[in-house]
């Protein structure tokens, strides 16, 4: 953690908002595609797979950027339980951003489905066919998707709480569109 900085740097903010769009789209596509037999099913599946891999790549880049540049400190007057919730929920979000695409990829592998990203472009199988692994991974992918969405809602609620109720600068640390870093608030 690098103290003193008031905002995430522009690359971090760009990655955050880009991934926010991708992840929300991904969760809605996922829950929608498994509930329909209409032709849109195939369209949704064909977006779900490459988008999932895109999120995996972006999450790994983001993790590296985070390790390199850290994050602004939380306000010193933030109650300890909220600090703890903030740390834990962010660890969980990173785990899901990286874990869910890997689980999906492994799940398709365990069912011996080709993992097609685009016409003619496919990923290697990362597991052999296995009924028990497929079931385990399918359950994990399904239930973690709901946990992921719940966590996203919690994250949004917390962000709005910081923005509207506490007004402590936490929301602005990520929401700001300014490309100038660590400018004084009185600019």
């Amino acid at each position, binding site marked *: 953690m690098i103290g003193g900085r008031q905002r995430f740097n522009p690359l971090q903010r760009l990655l955050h908002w880009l991934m926010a769009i991708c992840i929300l789209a991904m969760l*809605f596509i996922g829950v*929608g595609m498994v509930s329909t037999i209409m032709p849109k*099913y195939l369209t949704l599946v064909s977006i779900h797979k490459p988008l999932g891999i895109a999120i995996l790549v972006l999450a790994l880049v983001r993790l590296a950027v985070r390790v390199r540049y850290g994050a602004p400190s939380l306000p010193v007057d933030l109650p300890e339980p909220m600090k703890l919730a903030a740390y834990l929920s962010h660890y969980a979000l990173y785990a899901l951003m990286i874990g869910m695409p890997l689980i999906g990829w492994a799940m398709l592998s365990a*069912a011996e489905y*080709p993992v097609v990203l685009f016409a003619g472009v496919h990923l290697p199988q990362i597991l052999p066919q296995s*009924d*028990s692994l497929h*079931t385990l991974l399918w359950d994990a992918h399904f239930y973690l998707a709901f946990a992921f969405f719940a966590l996203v809602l919690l994250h949004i609620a917390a962000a709005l709480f910081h923005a509207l109720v506490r007004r402590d600068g936490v929301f602005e640390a990520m929401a700001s569109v300014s490309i100038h870093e660590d400018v004084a608030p009185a600019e």
Partner: protein
Amino acid sequence: MPQPHRPPTLSVFGSLVLIAIVIGGGAAAFGYTAGWFSPQRLTPNKLVDAFTPPGGQPPLGHRRNHAKGICFTGIFEANGAGSALSHAAVFARGQYPALGRFNLGTADPNAPDATVRVRGMGLRISTPDGQEWRAAMINAPVFPVSTPQAFYELLLASASKDPNAMKAFAGAHPEIAAFGAWATKGPWTGSYAEERFNSLDSFIFTDNSGVEHAVRWSLLPAAQVVPVSPDDLAKRGPDFLEQEIAERVRGGPIHWTMVVTVANPGDPTADPSRAWPEDRRAVNVGTLTVQQIQPERDGPCRDINFDPTVLPSGIRTSDDPFPPARSSAYAKSYDLRTAEAKYYPRTATDAKP
């Protein structure tokens, strides 16, 4: 950031209400997308469940439809002619490994062979570039109905205790007459080797110059077709088809010719219940040779989902609504049966607990 007209800030209570609305709205939108507020939506679960009659036991550990089957392995030998229609590697002259499954269109894995009208073939052809072409074909010349919704209603009608349900269904879906004519008057055979297997669904082939061709395909048996009456078949053993094909292939490989039929402009591609006129251009693209038969129990086809939308580059789905519906339902069936694997009799020694 001082602003001349800063909007009045929300009270804490107002802020909490706003947060609750945002979160509640998000959750509701998610639930709506998941179909929680749309009980009439035809989901893969509903479609798959409809294969089990009300009060019946689903075939745990088995495919929910086409539950009885036997595996085969062999070779697809492309003669190169298909390359004029599709740039898929599978049509370039050469030999490609094939894996498949002869099956019966029934939800009962123990159904006597003579009791099932529809016979099918699941097929997977692999090419060295790592791509796959999976198909699931049946011996009927047309599909019974025009839409997946109608197919779901057909399943409900045929499982209904109402004696008039099927008559009412046929009245509302006159397209079923063509399938009905085949089912009642078409010939029965004594062997999978004598069946013609048809894609029924339409697909789009893309050739090397990017031109698209709407096609259907069929596997035409090389074996002499010998019609046998259903009454004579009923006298044979419950698994006569499986025994016959195993014995026949032990005696030597058996063959089918793959013929791709190209639509004329205006031919119905979105409706597999309507045949295309007989005079359409038909291209012989190669030969499927079945070299070995293996029982499904521990055979290589057991764990494969013959999802007809697993297609190589050069073949894609058309406006036919069935391949997406089948893909969605087959995946659900696969998810169910893999989760129920303990009920499947894998080997003689590793039977039900």
